[in-house]
């Protein structure tokens, strides 16, 4: 819980000496609570209070940068329990585990496959984020496997060593890539801390209970290591949900610093369907990094699409630039379709037009990212707006005909639109799925 103005007032000298520039200590406290002034303005404020206020100004959940170079990514920094309260900020990292017991070639080919997991959806590139190397045998093999992985990918690496000594070796070999160390426990944290400090690396802290987790994070912070992620280990799924919910609540509602770190989840499962379903749980419920096993494209695409959905800003639907889009070798006799500039609508229409193999023009009207029906209800997708878009798009000079296909849901606009635009309106299907056959049967 953030400190209120009154909470802060109680910590001030209460002398109303005005040295801060305000007439009372209370007024100053209010400004501090709003973070519009800095504590330094009061010369009499105690060191202890200053430190407390400083902590206050830090985000409740740390944001960490994982990896180095162009594939690095940010994890954590979340500010809400539910996406509708504002938004989820940093899309959770999706990574894949690689066993060091595989042969060199198997490792390289697996990494190659992981590198290839890139998809484009609604104008965004969806890609995966991490590779976790797990030690199964001796130190030498672990280091070798780490080196092969590093040679094969620029993705951030997680080192899952079975002992601090192995971790140190691998960390030393991989240090310039800023690997994530897995993991510090109540028994080994001093050794892990020294590796983390020597190479300046982030660390996953693993403990089965929140008490133990916060004990270890506090110890690590006092040792000077504070780039941490939290893992509560293998447990039944509902307990993982409970842990993740508690960790986020502790951080956001109680400003519990010891738990104010992003969450790390190992969600491996041999069955790709089950694994994806569990990943879905962790994506919706608070994980910042999820490590999986399945590298098939169809599994990765579904997991990454869910992440894209959940991390979309609810206030800012994905939009495309409102303009004229030629599809294929569109010419002067090609059909013209009008739709909104909501990415999902546009790309769905685009997909269907492409599937029809009939070169066409799509005009996207600026509906502020609303879908057809919503935009129509909000009066953003009106006869006037469509008519203006036709005018501004320059379509009139590019075609010989005057036919315009509109979405079936806004058939009611036909009359007014014909009047305003001078185009002949053809009412298209309600659902985009019907567009392809509609275009084919147009003539």
């Amino acid at each position, binding site marked *: 819980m953030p400190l209120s103005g009154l909470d802060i007032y109680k910590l001030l000298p209460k002398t109303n000496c005005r040295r801060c520039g305000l007439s009372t200590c209370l007024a100053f406290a209010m400004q501090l609570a709003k973070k519009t002034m800095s504590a330094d303005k009061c010369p009499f404020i105690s060191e202890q209070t200053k430190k407390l206020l400083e902590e206050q100004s830090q985000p409740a959940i740390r944001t960490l940068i994982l990896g180095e170079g162009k594939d690095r990514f940010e994890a954590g920094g979340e500010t809400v329990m*539910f*996406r*509708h309260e504002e938004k989820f900020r940093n899309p959770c990292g999706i990574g894949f585990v690689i066993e060091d017991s595989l042969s060199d070639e198997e490792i390289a080919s697996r990494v190659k496959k992981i590198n290839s997991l890139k998809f484009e*959806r*609604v104008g965004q590139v969806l890609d995966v984020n991490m590779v976790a190397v797990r030690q199964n045998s001796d130190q030498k093999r672990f280091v070798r496997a780490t080196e092969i992985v590093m040679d094969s990918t620029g993705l951030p690496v997680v080192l899952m060593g079975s002992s601090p000594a192995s971790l140190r070796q691998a960390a030393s070999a991989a240090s310039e890539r800023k690997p994530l160390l897995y993991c510090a426990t109540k028994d080994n944290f001093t050794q892990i801390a020294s590796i983390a400090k020597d190479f300046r690396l982030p660390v996953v802290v693993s403990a089965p209970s*929140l*008490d133990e987790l*916060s*004990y270890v994070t506090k110890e690590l912070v006092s040792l000077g290591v504070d780039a941490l992620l939290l893992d509560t280990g293998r447990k*039944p*799924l*509902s307990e993982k*949900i*409970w842990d993740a*919910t*508690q960790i986020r*609540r*502790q951080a956001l*509602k*109680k400003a*519990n610093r010891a*738990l104010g770190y992003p969450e790390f989840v190992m969600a491996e499962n041999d069955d*790709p*369907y*089950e694994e*994806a*379903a*569990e990943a*879905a*749980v962790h*994506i*919706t*419920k608070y994980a910042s990094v999820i490590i999986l096993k399945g590298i*098939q494209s*169809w*599994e990765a*695409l*579904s*997991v990454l*699409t*869910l992440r*894209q*959905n*959940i991390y*979309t800003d*609810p206030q800012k639907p994905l939009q495309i630039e409102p303009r004229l889009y030629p599809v294929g070798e569109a010419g002067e006799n090609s059909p013209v379709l009008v739709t909104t500039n909501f990415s*999902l609508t546009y790309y*769905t229409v685009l*997909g269907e037009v492409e599937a029809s193999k009939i070169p066409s023009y799509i005009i996207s009207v600026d509906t502020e990212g609303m*879908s057809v*029906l919503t935009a129509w209800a909000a009066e953003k997708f009106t006869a006037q707006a469509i008519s203006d878009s036709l005018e501004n798009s320059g379509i009139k000079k590019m075609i010989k005909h005057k036919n315009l296909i509109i979405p079936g849901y806004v058939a009611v606009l036909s009359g007014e639109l014909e009047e305003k635009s001078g185009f002949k309106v053809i009412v298209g299907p309600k*659902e985009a*799925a019907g567009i392809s056959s509609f275009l084919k049967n147009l003539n």
Partner: protein
Amino acid sequence: MEIEEILEKWSGGVYSVSIGACAEDGGSRKNTVRIGGQKSLPLLFKEGDIPNRPVIAFEIWDIPPQDWPEGLVSSYGKAPEDPLIWAQMCVKDFGARLLCLRLQGAHPDCGDKSPEECARFVSSLLEKVSVPLIIIGSGDDAKDNLVMPACSEAAKSERCLLGCATQENYKTLAASALADGHSIIAESPIDINIAKQLNILISDMGFALDRIVINPTIGALGYGLEYAYSIMERGRIAALSGDKTLSSPFICFTGQESWKAKEAKGGDKQGVIWEIITASSLIQAGADILVMRHPEAAKRVFGHISVLFGGNNSDH
């Protein structure tokens, strides 16, 4: 330094709705399905009672399915050619405890079956299978207003769940459902205020709130799923905070939406996983009934629910 867990204290809860009537309740079903009743957000067992698991309803049609991808239809072999055999297959081979019948054949574009024909189909379905039924119309308002009353009567006292009532068209369906002892699905277009308004309108007709199930209208994974996800979370929080007009369980047509997705048509596994992820993510938002299409996806989601709730439960 023991950490004190932060527990939400909710004053409200979700109504518990029962589907299907056995002999002692005047029906002929062999099992009933109970949904809702939660006093907590999904899966937070320590915070309040969660008496029922989400359930899966297999979607069947009264005619062979149209516009279903080939791989989806063939997952039932030749059964969909005869909807009654298809229905029995869902129950016998795939362990369905709940069926969702869509009267697509009544649609003017899909056969335009008469109300009497539809009612007869419902009667034979009730004879052939003994699980509870959800019955939804063809999507053509005018036609559904003729068909649904006939089907409602044909299933009198079986305590079906009938749908879908909308803000523009709810009176006929609500009156029939009320007269014949059924519950009702209230559909709103991803809009929490309309959901609330419609529940009020329907309850004003004399419907008990514990006989309404909300269809929040979902989008599939990649097709607006997040809108429904957040509407459902908001609705559930409102319910738990004591808003009785939003305290109905949710029904999600995950099969219908998932198989429309371009990705779902891109390969069998891609389609199955698309439906699984659509369903499993909506469970996290509070889905109570998942109406599903692919038997493999249904099986996987059933397994996932068992993992979430611990152990197997033959009741579902």
